[in-house]
């Protein structure tokens, strides 16, 4: 972590800005954003003690089977069984160990177990659609679930959400809090989805799309998708002899 010597002797980490990754709060095509974005400019909040600390939520928030969304009921949920796994990192490339990852999603028919969901697709008595786990000492997380279905919504004429899993991450600091969605590769619904496309930068949008990975499938049991999640990290320091490395 980058540290800064200070007058009071209090030395705190400094998290880099990552504004370029994020969608604007005011995103016209996503209609619900119209009345829910501040119009006044954001005020500057220095990263002091409250901001560089954050809840370190422990294993006590996770039951042993909470990472497996297919075993929460008497029977197995319908749908395509998948493994979703990857690493939680910060933007310096450092893994974020022992951090809580929470997910929620629609069932394989595209229906949430939520009374507000009016999509006339069947509920699945064997699927609630919520899970959580802690990353391990190398920042790895892993869930077993079923592939969620696409679902319609009323944003625009014949609007459908691409299949997605909602993710909630805490990292180690208030500055690192992230709520996002994981998408599936090659989804034909991307082009018409204003939530996915609210992220203006194509490269940034790609960072929300998981990768199919044959190597981590379990033969005759489950397909597998890999998705790394990158939280804000320390402000960049300039390295001599910077080396380029291919990630994949």
């Amino acid at each position, binding site marked *: 972590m980058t540290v800064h010597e200070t*007058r009071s002797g*209090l030395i705190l980490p400094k998290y880099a800005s990552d504004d370029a*990754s994020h969608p604007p709060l005011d995103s016209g095509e996503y209609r619900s954003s119209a*009345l829910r974005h*501040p119009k*006044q400019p954001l005020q500057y909040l220095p990263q*002091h*003690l409250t901001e*560089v600390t954050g809840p370190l939520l422990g294993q006590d928030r996770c039951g042993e089977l909470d990472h497996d969304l297919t075993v929460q009921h008497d029977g197995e949920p319908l749908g395509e069984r998948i493994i979703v796994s990857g690493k939680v990192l910060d933007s310096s490339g450092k893994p974020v160990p022992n951090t809580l990852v929470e997910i929620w999603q629609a069932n394989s028919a595209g229906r949430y177990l939520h009374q507000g969901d009016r999509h006339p697709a069947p509920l699945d008595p064997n699927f609630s659609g919520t899970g959580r786990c802690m990353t391990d000492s190398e920042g790895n997380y892993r869930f077993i679930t079923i592939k969620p279905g696409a679902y319609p919504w009323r944003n625009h004429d014949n609007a459908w959400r691409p299949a997605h899993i909602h993710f909630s991450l805490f990292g180690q600091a208030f500055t690192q809090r992230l709520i996002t969605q994981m998408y599936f590769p090659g989804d034909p619904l991307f082009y018409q989805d204003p939530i996915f496309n609210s992220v203006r930068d194509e490269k940034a949008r790609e960072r929300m799309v998981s990768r199919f990975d044959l190597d981590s499938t379990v033969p005759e049991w489950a397909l597998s998708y890999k998705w790394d999640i990158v939280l804000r990290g320390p402000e*960049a320091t300039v390295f001599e002899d910077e080396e380029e490395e291919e990630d994949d």
Partner: protein
Amino acid sequence: MRAPATTPSQTVGPFYALPQGILWDDGPDVVPDDREGAFVLHGVLRDGNGDPVPDGVIEIWQADEQGRFDHPDDPRPEASGWQGFGRCGTDGEGRFWFRTVKPGPLPTPDGETEAPHIDVTVLARGMLNRVVTRVYFPDEAANSTDPVLATVPAERRDTLLGVSDERGLRFDIRLQGDGETVFFAV
């Protein structure tokens, strides 16, 4: 090695409140009700029309009564086991609440002192990223020298001040429009 860029934020969506999901039963309880000084922090989340937001999530994070955190990046003596975190979904009328204690003042790296405050994250359907604000306490002398409040235009500062009432401290959040709450880039 090239540093990876961060994953973009997306909305929490309208259907986050699933059974056994992110709204823990004890989410609003930052402290147990028998902790000395415990009070209720509560308010209503409203949109640009002034209508309640029934599908929002409010999270808070704060120091303990002595202004301590139990965290590896707090270089001072730690408050053992203190996790000043709360999470509450808004109800049909946009209301949220927490049971917490008033945090102590905090030193800054510049040698100043921050008045007691609670950091707040607001999430909702329609919000593609969270917004961040702070709750300050009314009648707190240290507010006048708080380095963050000092940067906020005087006419908007009161949107960051809780209001004492019979339940505890009221802190309404207005996402947009008349009396828009001051939000921060952190």
